[in-house]
């Protein structure tokens, strides 16, 4: 029997060492690419920095950025816009996503093609989606003005991107179009994991289609629903490219969300400290919101 200092990782009492060992590179990498910038940005948000440079000495500690932030009407406006966008886009993504998932979950001819069609917007790069929608809502030769005039909803062409309400609506539509396929794909996966016999049992028990949806489908989807909802909300919360390319935050800051505002402060006005403060607040709100929602998720299944 050798009682040396052999590193026998197969021993039950040592088995977890191997786990830590294997995790180490990933943890280091995450630390490097996520935690470090996070710390830097928190640090900067407490300094009066314009253009952040790591080789410069620290500025004195100050909470001026946060004071300015919370007293700025722009910040509250952006928060309100973000909240509206998150609620509206998530809601419609869910209705559309669940609806299309239920549709393509049925057996019919061309089902595979229909599924492909539903998932298509997901595969389109955001910037290209924006270009398509920007063209559709173009004031002089866009598709939507033509359709709405033909249908008699409006009598003169609407200039979508100069009216605050219309611009906000266009951004919503674009984001919903881009976001619902993800919900649809997740819901479809969830739907397919529900055993047929749940539905059979319910049918024998006399439940009609609506009762089956409410009593079986939705509760069975709850776990997937919760996670998907968080992911979609976070996506809307921090999405930048759609709004930036489409409206740049305008008109009259009607589509200026927190992420647009962060960008503008950082790279438009070069107020890195101030921008970092917005970023930190956004992060805190995101973390709290997702914690709340995971905590709320029913503990079935």
């Amino acid at each position, binding site marked *: 029997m050798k009682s040396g200092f052999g590193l026998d990782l197969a021993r039950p009492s040592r088995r977890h060492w191997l786990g830590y060992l294997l995790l180490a590179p990933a943890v280091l990498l995450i630390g490097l690419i996520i935690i470090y910038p996070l710390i830097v940005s928190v640090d900067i948000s407490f300094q009066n920095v314009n253009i952040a440079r790591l080789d410069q000495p620290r500025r004195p500690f100050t909470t001026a950025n946060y004071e300015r932030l919370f007293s700025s009407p722009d910040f509250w406006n952006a928060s309100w816009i973000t909240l509206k966008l998150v609620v509206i886009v998530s809601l419609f993504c869910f209705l559309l996503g669940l609806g299309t998932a239920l549709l393509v979950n049925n057996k019919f001819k061309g089902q595979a093609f229909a599924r492909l069609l539903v998932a298509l917007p997901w595969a389109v790069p955001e910037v290209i989606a924006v270009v398509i929608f920007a063209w559709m809502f173009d004031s002089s030769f866009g598709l939507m003005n033509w359709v709405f005039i033909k249908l008699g909803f409006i009598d003169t062409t609407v200039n979508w991107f100069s009216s605050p309400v219309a611009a906000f609506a266009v951004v919503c539509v674009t984001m919903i179009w881009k976001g619902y396929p993800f919900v649809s794909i997740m819901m479809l996966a969830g739907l397919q994991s529900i*055993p047929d*016999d*749940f539905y*059979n*049992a319910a*049918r*024998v*028990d006399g439940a009609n289609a609506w009762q089956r949806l409410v009593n079986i489908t939705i509760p*069975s989807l709850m776990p997937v629903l919760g996670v998907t909802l968080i992911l979609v909300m976070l996506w809307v919360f921090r999405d930048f490219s759609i709004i930036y390319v489409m409206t740049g935050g305008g008109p009259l800051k009607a589509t200026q969300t927190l992420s647009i505002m962060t960008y503008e402060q950082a790279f438009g006005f070069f107020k890195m400290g101030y921008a970092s403060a917005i970023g930190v607040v956004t992060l805190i709100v995101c973390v709290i919101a997702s914690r709340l929602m995971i905590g709320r998720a029913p503990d079935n299944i």
Partner: protein
Amino acid sequence: MAGIHIENVTKSYGQLSVLKNFSLEVSDGEFVVFVGPSGCGKSTMLKILAGLEEASSGTIRIGGRDVTDLAPGDRDIAMVFQNYALYPHLTVRKNMGFGLKMRGTDPTEIDKRVTEAAKILGVDHLLDRRPKALSGGQRQRVALGRAIVREPQAFLMDEPLSNLDAKLRVHTRAEISALHKRLGVTTIYVTHDQIEAMTMADRIVIMKDGAIQQIADPDTMFKKPANLFVAGFIGSPGMNFLRATVNTNGPSPAARIFGYDVPLRIPQSFAGREVILGLRPEHIAAGPGAVTFDVMPRLVESLGSEKYVYVDVPVENRVEAARTGGDERRADTIIARLINPDERVTEGPIKLSFDPARLHLFDATTQASIE
């Protein structure tokens, strides 16, 4: 409570014909078991009865009412599924009351009936748990409870015991039988296990490849199997089969097995015909008897109270495996089941005997029983 009347029901999935002309009359309060190997169409027939599948043709009446084109919920039947299909997000109480709630029954009435059913099944202490916090046996009871609170005209059960371990299965089998006696509700029970069929059924419907082979009570099924398939399916270990040609060397028709001419009680006209003789393992005895033959056992298994003696079959008596309905047993061996054997049966040559009156005769080509 009601009788069930199934008339000429067929079912095909495209080219595949799953049920062929299924007709059955189930009287009020009867316990009928559908039995057959996996894939023979038992579940399909049950689903058609429940209205979960559409029959390709034929009619179904429950309690005199034509339900062929009625939705499952309007047929007034309850079904127990193999994997129980309990809703994971609902408590046992809500699971059991689900059917009543869907029908808009008054909540106090639901509560009363659920409590009552839970008492009958001994799950009243589990009512506020979720299904995942129950054992297999408890889930099974809850599934039964969900069926009985509805007080339907008939119960349909699809292999409700197959997810239980062997011991619990025997126990629950007896409980379902007792429950049926107590409630007296017409029940159709599907299983692939012939022992369940034999112990529980008032009448057995034995199926193969979508066709009914025989409908009879368990005793008749055992004593007078209609064909080779039924004979091989019912009983454990299964019936031994021997191939022989009827000869008239002696005064009456006889078949030569194990080198002996065994007289058969059939008309002279059978001379020259090829037949299959069936002999149940328990009808072979140790020691001399009406027909005695000396054999060298290949293997002797002792189960304590009984011994299984495996004996090689002479080449001319072997039946091709396909004939015996896919029985996985080897066609070149027969089994003798000796009950309370004495110590003589060990290694070495032994004398076995049987009574020729116990022989079952089957036509080698049609496989039907010869009376």
